[in-house]
């Protein structure tokens, strides 16, 4: 085991490389979060308010994706798409795979947020003559947002953690860059701990925010 001083200087030397991996992790996570919101929220609303012919496929999609481990989905999309002659750059394929998974989660969170609103709110809104659109915009959506945010922020944390799986596809995210540094320097444990701390530094503020919002809103 190298001395503490050696370890420290080693870490400093490799820091730029690790930061490159960190950037990839953050980029992938943010891309997945944004796209899954754009897909998941409309689908979630359709699940709650839409006609039966729309609800069924969305329900099937959400249940299917959530019954399969994210790693398996990742493998399939990443290795399966080229087999079907769909060739995407590896980063994009990974993002597509993670987004497919996360969108299903967002659908569930959206559904839960609306269903947590007491039925009396809809009745009161109907009683003063508001149509579906006005009900949605002025009464239901504002209340749903409050119930949406805490689990959503938790899912952002999940996304950051899930992004580490792209390392298994050879994409140099924080985890893989960590492993590559370990491969060169043979200093395993301290670097793994450092990596854990880096993920922790990203996620812990988000978790704390989610908890604070939960207390305030729900």
């Amino acid at each position, binding site marked *: 085991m190298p001395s503490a001083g050696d370890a420290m200087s080693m870490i400093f030397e490799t820091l730029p490389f690790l930061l490159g991996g960190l950037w990839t992790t953050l980029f992938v996570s943010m891309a997945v979060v944004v796209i899954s919101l754009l897909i998941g929220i409309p689908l979630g609303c359709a699940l709650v308010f839409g006609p039966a012919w729309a609800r069924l496929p969305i329900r099937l999609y959400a249940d299917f994706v959530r019954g399969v481990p994210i790693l398996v989905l990742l493998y399939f999309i990443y290795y399966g798409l080229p087999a079907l002659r769909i060739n995407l750059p590896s980063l994009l394929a990974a993002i597509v795979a993670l987004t497919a998974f996360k969108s299903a989660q967002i659908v569930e969170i959206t559904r839960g947020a609306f269903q947590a609103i*007491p039925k*009396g*709110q809809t*009745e*009161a*809104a*109907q*009683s*003063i*003559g*508001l*149509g*579906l659109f*006005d009900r949605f915009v*002025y*009464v239901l959506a*504002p*209340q749903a947002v*409050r119930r949406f945010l805490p689990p959503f922020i938790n899912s952002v944390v999940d996304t950051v953690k899930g992004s580490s799986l792209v390392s298994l596809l050879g994409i140099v995210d924080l985890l893989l860059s960590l492993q590559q540094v370990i491969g060169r320097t043979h200093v395993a444990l301290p670097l793994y701990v450092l990596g854990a701390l880096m993920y922790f530094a990203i996620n812990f503020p988000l978790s704390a925010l989610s908890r604070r919002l939960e207390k305030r809103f729900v």
Partner: protein
Amino acid sequence: MSNAAPQPVIEIANLTKSFGALQVLKGVDLSVEKGQVIAIIGPSGSGKTTLLRCINFLEEYDGGSVRIDGVEVGFSEANGKRRRRTERELAHIRVDAAMVFQQFNLFPHLTAAQNIMLGLIKSRGKSKAEARSIAERWLARVGLSAKIDAMPGQLSGGQQQRVGIARAVAMEPKVLLLDEITSALDPELVGEVLGVVRELAAEGRTMILVTHEMAFAREVADRVVFTDQGKIMIDAPPALVFGEQPNERLRAFLARFAGLQLPAPTPAR
């Protein structure tokens, strides 16, 4: 009361409603004239709340009809075919049968004034300024000028319910539906809410209230309707209902309300 009576505001004919295998309304007929106050009383499960909620189609009745000013609430006739009204049509109709709820159902993210303004702007087409002044006026009428910009979470139960009443009445509906509006309140808060209802009744508003407050029903109602097992058993002025009572079930029901001082037979009002 003139004999050439104008069309009743509310006309309910042979109304039936089932929840699954359970038939809750078994053919109800009821007619309400403009300016009348009807109190509906009865044991739980008798269908009184369901009846009220059918009037604004929050419960969708199966058979029979409910008409507000001659317009059927739940269904429209086109080419001899009866079809359920669309949500948009229902929205228009429901405004005229505004409801006050047992659980208040104020919109928690809006202030008291905004709760009232929302319907005025969206359903009655008022401008924001007009809506605001109407809302302020009504809040003053129910004694809550100090709470115009308060959030529902900051109000007591009685205050919330008064806002709920203001929200319904501000729509100037043809009939006000009051669904056990004091049942969820602490006893000491009931009075302030009933006070508002009393004033509204005195103004000549058409109201239908489902209530357990027997003394209040006797005081304010023009007619008292007693429901039991899905049918209307009695539909008569309060003096008859709360006076000497031949109906077994009704006597048994009223007997449970101890302290209800049934008057000795009094001369007709």
